[in-house]
């Protein structure tokens, strides 16, 4: 009844030597079948296992090895490294700022001339600040400076790595924005599969869901607001600019994921489009063509 040559009806263990764990893991990962069958019984019949229990022991070993390898492979993918790096960078920045506020509050009680912010923490840590001898405060300042340094290093890492992973996306947006979009989508492949309308509002999920629930206007832009072409456009035309930028970024992500080759014409096309949009506003002064309010 079993046709050994027909892969569509064979179990993962067919053609395997019982001791070959690597091949077994590959068969779990790569194989497929049209329909499930009584695999434990078949395996015993085929002589792959001595008994049902023996079969399940082998299956456990093989699925563990297969899944471990597949997980490692997927997690090591370069775009995932970017996702982690950009999130770590944001965490470091946010934490450094929070601690800097705490530090400023504390230092202010000891030194009436205490400054504020991460820069003050850096000066304090490097010992350039007189009149503050409390070691606990200085130690806290060192942590803040350390976190801020870490954030800077992560930013450099992102700026260096993103162009390798997503050349077109990094050319159109800056590498940090490109990495943020990849992070928000969950990966380069996920971003490549998103329609441009979704790319346009990535990062504005709260506003988007408020809109879908029916009590807010639709958001014009999410994180792509930080793109120069969006921010540099008059508020009345920002919706159009965001649409144009998102469209090109969506295409860039697809090219990066599916082909990986650099297409410089994308950048030129976007620049031309943005120029047209920005000229529109210069022509007819205060005529609002986009409607709605600016919700930034």
């Amino acid at each position, binding site marked *: 009844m079993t046709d050994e040559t027909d892969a569509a009806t*064979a*179990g*993962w263990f067919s053609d395997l030597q019982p001791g070959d764990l690597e091949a077994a893991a590959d*068969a*779990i*990962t790569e*194989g*497929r*079948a*049209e*329909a*499930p*069958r*009584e*695999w*434990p019984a078949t395996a015993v019949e085929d002589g792959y296992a001595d008994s049902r229990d023996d079969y*399940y*022991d082998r*299956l*456990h070993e093989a*699925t*563990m090895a*297969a*899944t*471990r390898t*597949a*997980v490692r492979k*997927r*997690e090591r993918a370069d775009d995932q490294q970017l996702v982690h790096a950009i999130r770590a960078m944001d965490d470091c920045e946010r934490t450094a700022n929070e601690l800097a506020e705490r530090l400023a509050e504390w230092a202010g009680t000891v030194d009436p001339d205490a400054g504020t912010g991460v820069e003050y923490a850096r000066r304090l840590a490097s010992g350039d600040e007189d009149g503050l001898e409390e070691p606990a405060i200085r130690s806290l300042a060192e942590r803040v400076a350390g976190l801020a340094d870490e954030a800077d290093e992560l930013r450099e890492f992102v700026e260096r790595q993103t162009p390798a992973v997503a050349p077109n996306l990094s050319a159109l947006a800056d590498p940090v924005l490109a990495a943020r979009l990849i992070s928000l989508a969950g990966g380069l492949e996920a971003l490549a599969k998103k329609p441009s309308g979704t790319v346009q509002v990535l990062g504005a999920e709260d506003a988007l*869901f408020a809109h*879908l*629930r029916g009590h807010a206007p639709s958001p014009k832009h999410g994180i792509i607001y930080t793109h120069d072409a969006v921010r540099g456009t008059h508020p009345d035309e920002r919706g159009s600019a965001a649409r144009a930028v998102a469209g090109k970024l969506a295409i860039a992500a697809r090219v990066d994921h599916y082909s990986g080759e650099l297409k410089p014409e994308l950048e030129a096309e976007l620049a031309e489009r943005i120029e047209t949009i920005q000229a529109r506003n210069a022509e007819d002064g205060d005529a609002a063509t986009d409607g709605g309010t600016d919700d930034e």
Partner: protein
Amino acid sequence: MSELPTGVERRAFDGTERLATRGEPVYGEPTDGEWRAWNPNRSKLGAMLELGMDTGLAGGETVLYLGAASGTTVSHVADFAGPTYAVEFAARPARDLLEAAESRDRLFPLLKDARKPESYAHVVESDVDVIVQDVATRGQARVALENRQFLADDGRLLLAVKARSEDVTRAPEDVFEDVRAELEEGYEVVETERLERYHTDHLGIVARPL
């Protein structure tokens, strides 16, 4: 209140009666000897048992678990059931799932997409006794229908439907009604109950294959 499966008991943890199974702890849950508490707030199936739904589970079943995530629930299932196939699509939670499977030699982790049964039909055996499904994707009824082929004719589907995965903007009741209607193409729905007390906008469904 229907009976608990063999291997699942109500035990006192810090003076509170809680569901528990025997096995290595997985997610920092409280333990009492070799028993570990099963938190219904973190497990749809745990909630279904807490609410006394008629899951038909007796213990020792062969189980196909779709949407195993980091293994919180499936580890409890493997503690009282027989061979348990755990399908999870995302790599990050699968890393934790591997850890849970390490000490459970009848738990088989599979990094596969539950929407593509052909990618694991060469591994998962036919005629499993129970399918547990908890996938946060659109088309949850479709997933259940496509995996019907693994289920024995007298088997059971234990399904947790997440309304927000189907459509965040619609009322959960409407979503549940649609899922149920679609599900009835291949299943007879035996019991439904909102899991509200433990999980917002979730519906627990017990169904038999047609």
